[in-house]
């Protein structure tokens, strides 16, 4: 999958606080990742609009967030399923001799601003849950 991966790693302090407040850290961690998926996926679809020909690549965008757990870290994949027609996304991001790279699409996955955006989305959800639990 040409994708980015949002993870809960690095949020230990916030998750520990939620645990101390007797919040369900698993549910809240998954909520944060689902929010990432819901905010980022429309941006990818918007970037793809200018590349529309058959719609195959756009259809390969993961529509539903799939949360995966590995030990104490959850992650969600956002982006294209390569096997379902998403291979063209790789062409688009890196270009070919006949097609310029799509920098905007590349940055949605790998750019520093995208990584920052994802961290902010996750932080906002976790802080919101902490505020709710403290009430």
């Amino acid at each position, binding site marked *: 999958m040409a994708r980015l991966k949002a993870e809960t790693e690095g949020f230990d302090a916030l998750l520990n606080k939620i645990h101390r407040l007797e919040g369900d850290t698993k549910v809240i961690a998954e909520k944060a990742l689902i929010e990432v998926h819901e905010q980022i996926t429309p941006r990818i679809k918007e970037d793809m609009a200018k590349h529309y020909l058959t719609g195959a690549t756009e259809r390969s965008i993961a529509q539903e967030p799939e949360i995966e757990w590995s030990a104490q870290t959850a992650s969600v994949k956002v982006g294209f399923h390569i096997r379902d027609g998403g291979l063209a996304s790789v062409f688009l991001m*890196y*270009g*070919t*001799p*006949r*097609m310029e790279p799509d*920098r905007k699409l*590349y940055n949605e996955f790998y750019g520093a601003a995208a990584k920052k955006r994802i961290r902010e989305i996750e932080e906002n959800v976790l802080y919101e849950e902490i505020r709710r639990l403290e009430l």
Partner: protein
Amino acid sequence: MKKIMDILEKFQVPVYRQGSITEDEEYPDTFFTFWEFGDETKYYDNVPVSREHIFWIYIYSKEPERVPGIEKETEEMFLKHDISILEAWKDAKSDEETHMGRRITISVREDLQEVGK
């Protein structure tokens, strides 16, 4: 950019900007393309002092036996000229079945001004 072009031109194969070959142009047997996809400015005391320009350099070839040698030589020359290799050569998609593609990610530092002056 000039530093990169000087290195690539030593191989005596065409060099193009990625995406600039038109539909009715045939690919040369072996050629490079390049694309600057990012830059990062470093500051000292709020003053910009240097900028890293990040490039993808691609090689496309219908002579796969030439490619490993070219990869090794370009890496050596990049390093010799203080060009950093961020990601080693890896496969890149080619839109012609006759040609294999490979891509490397490099960065070139541009000094903007001397600190303290």
